[in-house]
């Protein structure tokens, strides 16, 4: 790895100059894509808030947007953020915080350039909302750990080279204490990835069966038994999904039923009218709340309102797509395709009403159920007391399941 040419402290003006110099020395149009990305990483312009030597310059995260814009304007190749999403958003910050120097040097550069795809082996059939109940066992054998268990709802597992993995290493202590966090080679012969077909017919996710997977102790992240704390820093990095720009009025899913309503006078009924108008009002209120949250963040006053947005959009997506299917009448009886496909991504607006309706059912489950989100709001925002718990002081192996 080459040393970054950046001085110890770099101002925003210096940064603009560095970007311009880099782009002059590395013309994106005539360079090999991967060579360009590696050079960008080595110049500290991958993510400027990362340390020098790990793709950054130790600057404020807020300066990154300007750098990205300058690279995009110059026609620079991107690192395929869709495939790199888990690596960039979850693995990298966790390795940075808890990894050894060797792990940082080995993994972060190919992760950022997109050469190596990552996935996240967290959820299990018996550990969804209650992640700390996970049962995948890791047993130490000399310098290795032998891992057996089942993970589920794993995006990108069928494309991934590496995984961040949380396991149970001590069943005899209470559940939050007996976990250990690893980096797992997805090409290990004991890793079996199978598509998990959803009620939409598609398989965005996977089930991952781990049978005697051998992981060297050098790929442990954090201390033995400290996996829950390491996992917390991964989960804290789950992105708050706030649009980069303000949506226009009737932007988003509400556009599906307003367009339908205007185009099909024959479908209009008083009840349908009321439903469309109520949805219009709810969507516009949510849009303004999202805009207000953006303004708070821009003003350096982040509030807890972000947690409200996921709840609201899950509900709106479900309600509006449900109205749309019924407004579609006879057309609503047909579906696009039940074939098992592996979609590259999910864009509700580019799909059919039936798909929207079915896929939106996942919105109140994935990334924290709406029930868990209400608990989080009630306890962390409103300060209400937690439910009494029966699972905190009992050894994990003795918990009912």
């Amino acid at each position: 790895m080459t040393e970054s040419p950046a001085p110890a402290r770099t101002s925003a003006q210096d940064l603009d100059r560095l970007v311009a110099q880099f782009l002059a020395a590395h013309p994106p149009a005539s360079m090999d894509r991967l060579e360009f990305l590696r050079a960008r990483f080595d110049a500290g312009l991958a993510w400027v808030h990362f340390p020098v030597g790990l793709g950054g310059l130790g600057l404020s995260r807020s300066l990154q947007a300007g750098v990205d814009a300058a690279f995009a304007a110059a026609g620079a190749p991107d690192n395929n953020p869709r495939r790199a999403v888990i690596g960039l958003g979850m693995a990298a910050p966790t390795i940075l915080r808890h990894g050894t120097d060797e792990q940082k040097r080995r993994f972060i550069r190919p992760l950022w350039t997109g050469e190596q795809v990552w996935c996240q082996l967290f959820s299990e059939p018996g550990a969804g909302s209650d992640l700390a109940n996970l049962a995948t066992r890791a047993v130490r054998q000399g310098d290795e750990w032998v891992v057996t268990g089942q993970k589920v709802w794993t995006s990108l597992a069928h494309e991934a080279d590496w995984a961040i993995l949380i396991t149970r290493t001590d069943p005899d202590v209470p559940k939050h204490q007996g976990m250990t966090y690893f980096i797992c080679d997805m090409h290990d012969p004991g890793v079996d990835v199978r598509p998990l077909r959803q009620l939409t017919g598609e398989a965005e996710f996977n089930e991952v069966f781990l049978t005697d997977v051998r992981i060297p102790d050098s790929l442990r992240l954090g201390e033995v038994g400290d996996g829950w704390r390491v996992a917390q820093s991964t989960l804290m990095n789950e992105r708050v999904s706030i649009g980069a720009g303000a949506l226009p009025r009737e932007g988003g899913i509400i556009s599906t039923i307003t367009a339908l309503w205007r185009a099909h006078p024959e479908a209009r009924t008083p009840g349908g009218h009321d439903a469309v108008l109520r949805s219009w009002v709810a969507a516009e209120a949510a849009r303004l709340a999202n805009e207000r949250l953006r303004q708070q963040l821009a003003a350096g006053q982040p509030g807890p309102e972000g947690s409200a947005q996921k709840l609201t959009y899950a509900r709106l997506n479900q309600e509006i797509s449900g109205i749309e299917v019924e407004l579609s009448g006879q057309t609503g009886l047909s579906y696009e395709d039940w074939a098992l496909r592996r979609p590259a991504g999910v864009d509700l607006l580019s799909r059919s009403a039936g798909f929207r309706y079915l896929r939106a059912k996942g919105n109140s489950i994935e990334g924290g159920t709406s029930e868990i989100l209400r608990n989080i709001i009630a306890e962390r925002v409103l300060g209400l007391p937690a439910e009494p718990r029966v699972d905190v002081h009992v050894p994990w192996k003795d918990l009912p399941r």
Partner: protein
Amino acid sequence: MKDLLYSDVETQLRDGVRDALARRSPVATVLAGIESGQPYDRDLWRTLAVEMGLAGIAVPEKFGGAGGSLREAAVVLEELGRGVAPVPYLTSAIVATSALLACGAGDELAALASGQAIAVLAVPFAKGPFPGTAGAPAVAVDADGYLSGTVAGVADALAATLLLVPTADGLYAVDASAPGVTRAAVVPLDLTRPIADVSLAAVAGRRVAEGPQAAAAVDAGLLTGAALLASEQLGVAQWCLDTTVEYVKQRHQFGRPVGSFQAVKHRLADVWVELTQVRAVARHAAACAAEGDADLAVAASLAQAFCSPAAVHAAEECVQLHGGIGFTWEHPAHLFLKRAKADAIAYGTADRHRVHLAALVDLPG
């Protein structure tokens, strides 16, 4: 996109109003004042309108006001809602003042801005800002220029010193104590904002606007009222949420705080989520009103279509989650329930505003 946050000036203003209300009209004493035969808190009005200069906050300096904006007035309304304060601020300082501004009636404006005069628009409180939907005016002007007729359900008419009376012949300013003016109190659903039936029998008045300008002035008053009422509704809902959260932390049943039960927590989380949206919608409506934005009609109807049911929901949850004490006369929760429900009718129900939106945003029925 409008600025939906609060400025430092607005935050200081909020603190000042909240302090004044805490000193002069704590929620626990509001009901006692009303029951002692004082439907209005005239001392509180003097403090807010005269001493603090809030009646003229959004009135230009040339008319004797403070030259501020309706964004600031909206913050005042948030706090007045939070305190269910029995003062005619919304009706006089917002609605009547906006109508007079639209007709440039300088003399009346100066009196209102100083807080010395209190004016109300003599239309039913339920009337919304829906131009062209009004029937024949309830008050007629005879050949000699005298006004006669009855307007039912005028909010704060009993507190008013001046009535702004729409007629087919223009908008008239009428001295509320003039011979021939009768104000008959109605038993109000909302104890903190009395209403009255106003009758005029050959009363003299001064015409402040005529023709289309008169109709435009009434519309301006009602439109501003609908937009700014959302901020009052935000304040009402915020009190209900805050008070309920504190209560369920303290109240124990089954050996634990009732606020630790998910059945209770989830309902309060939902109210909080709704309030984040009420705040954004109310700030947007206030900003549109302050700037006379072309989008004001949509913003005001959105505000009432969204904030009315949200404030009622917060108040209903407040009563329910307080359990027995919330159903008593003694606890102030009912004042907020009644205010929220009356506000849901004021300046047009949510349903009427949705119907109005249908025309404004091209979603025909």
